[in-house]
């Protein structure tokens, strides 16, 4: 379907509307310099469009970490980088290389390989760089990426620049050490464990220096921040400005996940998570400063294959171990991979040109998605919808969804806003006391979690929750099962428009 889907970014200028919902959103990537734009526009992680065509994968080769974050419990994988797709199985560099080559040979669309954990890749330099070195040699057509807390970045910036590393993600939660002291209890630095403000000061310094060194060497840098209400919420605007000034090309603000059941400091100390409104406000605030990437958490770090499919079972560890490196004919794969890539790039280019022509005809700027693209007049109000999705499709039963993805549909297109969690069953956490375990209580919680949404898209839904949702003004919809999420959201938005539902303000419609 040739429909506009707003990319990962919020509009650069908000003319009185708080989000991308005013139909005048500029092209998601328009603000970027040409060489970065070229790198990003067909990138599965940054281009909403491209991530339907290309695939990426992660290998877990980096177990150790050199700092402690208050939102992380090292018993599990890195909370801020790989949730919800928790990478489970630790690979040696040798296993990782075999796995990546086998996948790349079988799935030519796999173009990006990331190392993000389970610890900090730069706290495991030997494993990380052995993997990168061999892959840049054997599979020069795979883009490599790495995520880090930044502590060891200055030390390895040159080494990173030497490999085929396409982009680096640094998690930067603060630039003020006093704020940092509330996020990081300690770091391991120059053979000592350092605590408190002193630790945060060193970490901040190294992150900023690392960021400068990478951009000076022409490496793309994305910055992630975890929004922690009452700790760094006000501070993040400043962070956004600073990292942009230093050349980061994207700033991605993610909500803190702090559940007691995870056993993290924040979880156990009942540190509040940001509300959807808080997250949105911050993302919108920072959008003026810098492009924000909102669909980021949709990526499934543990999945192998294209959106909507998981071919992981073909590449399990025991299958990889039985495979010899010589069994993989990468020479032949290289040729096939190039053909597939060229065909996809051609198709994407054609699509882009078509859209630009359409927009020009509609009288808009070449990059601005015009409202006319899908027939809903500019100025029509936007609608929030919750989706029980899986792998980019509307694929979950309402009652089985542990998390809903929230999308905003507006005349400008469809935009991913964030996630909301539900408490399905008792999680064994501190909240588990008597009555909370009852299914009705769980349903009440889900309904509360969906506040502000007018539609819930899921593959199926039971009779009782259906009624309950309707009494709360939320319209359950199971008619788009197994369709790509953005297409389904847009289809429902059009339907609401066609039925005149968008003429009424949300509250009136819900009361009606």
């Amino acid at each position: 379907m040739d429909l506009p889907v707003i990319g990962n970014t919020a509009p650069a200028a908000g003319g009185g509307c708080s989000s991308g919902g005013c139909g005048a959103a500029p092209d998601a990537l328009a603000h970027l310099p040409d060489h970065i734009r070229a790198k990003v526009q067909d990138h599965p992680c940054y281009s909403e469009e491209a991530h339907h065509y290309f695939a990426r994968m992660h290998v877990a080769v980096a177990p150790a970490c050199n700092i402690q974050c208050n939102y992380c419990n090292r018993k599990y994988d890195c909370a801020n980088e790989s949730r919800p797709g928790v990478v489970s199985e630790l690979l040696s560099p040798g296993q990782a290389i075999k796995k990546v080559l086998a996948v790349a040979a079988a799935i030519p669309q796999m173009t990006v390989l990331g190392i993000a954990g389970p610890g900090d890749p730069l706290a495991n330099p030997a494993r990380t760089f052995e993997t990168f070195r061999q892959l840049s040699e054997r599979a020069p057509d795979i883009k490599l990426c790495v995520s880090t807390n930044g502590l060891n970045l200055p030390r390895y910036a040159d080494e990173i620049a030497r490999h085929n590393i396409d982009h680096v993600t640094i998690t930067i939660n603060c630039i003020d050490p006093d704020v940092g002291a509330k996020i990081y209890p300690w770091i391991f630095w120059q053979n000592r464990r350092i605590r408190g403000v002193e630790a945060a000061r060193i970490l901040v310094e190294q992150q900023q220096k690392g960021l400068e060194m990478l951009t000076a060497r022409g490496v793309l840098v994305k910055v992630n921040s975890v929004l922690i209400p009452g700790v760094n919420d006000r501070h993040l605007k400043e962070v956004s400005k600073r990292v942009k000034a230093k050349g980061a090309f994207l700033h991605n603000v993610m909500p803190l996940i702090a559940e007691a059941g995870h056993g993290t400091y924040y979880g156990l100390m009942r540190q509040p998570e940001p509300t959807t409104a808080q997250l949105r406000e911050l993302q919108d605030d920072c959008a003026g400063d810098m492009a924000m990437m909102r669909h980021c958490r949709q990526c499934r770090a543990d999945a192998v294959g294209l959106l909507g499919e998981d071919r992981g079972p073909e590449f399990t560890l025991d299958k990889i171990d039985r495979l010899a490196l010589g069994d993989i004919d990468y020479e032949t794969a290289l040729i096939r991979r190039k053909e597939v890539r060229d065909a996809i790039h051609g198709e994407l280019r054609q699509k882009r040109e078509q859209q630009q022509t359409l927009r020009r005809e509609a009288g808009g700027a070449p990059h601005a998605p015009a409202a006319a693209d899908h027939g809903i007049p500019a100025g029509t109000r936007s609608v929030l919808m919750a989706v029980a999705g899986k792998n980019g499709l509307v694929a979950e039963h309402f009652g089985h969804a542990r998390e809903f993805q929230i999308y905003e549909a507006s005349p400008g297109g469809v935009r991913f806003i964030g996630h909301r969690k539900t408490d399905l069953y008792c999680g064994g956490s501190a909240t588990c006391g008597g009555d909370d375990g009852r299914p009705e209580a769980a349903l009440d919680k889900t309904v509360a979690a969906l506040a502000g949404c007018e539609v819930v898209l899921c593959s199926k839904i039971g009779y009782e929750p259906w009624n309950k949702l309707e009494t709360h003004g939320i319209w359950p919809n199971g008619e788009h099962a197994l369709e790509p999420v953005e297409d389904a959201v847009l289809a429902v938005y059009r339907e609401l428009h066609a039925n005149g539902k968008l003429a009424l303000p949300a509250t009136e419609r819900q009361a009606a």
Partner: protein
Amino acid sequence: MALQITQACVNCWACAGVCPNGAIAREIPHFLVDDQKCTECLGDYAEAQCAAICPIECAIVDEAGDPLNPPGSLTGIPASPV
């Protein structure tokens, strides 16, 4: 004279990478210190390196069985959270 790793260990590999004597090995169910090789880092570093990077309280103990990182010392989580 040697440190020891307890069953609190989560097998994160951090200690093995920083031991100056290569005294820490991956074992099942958890990492172990070779007491023939471990010097408690004396002469190399002011702090026992494994204990300085280990993220898990009570995972590393001395010969008397006392944890180098007692409860609450790394995470700040009090014994009975509020």
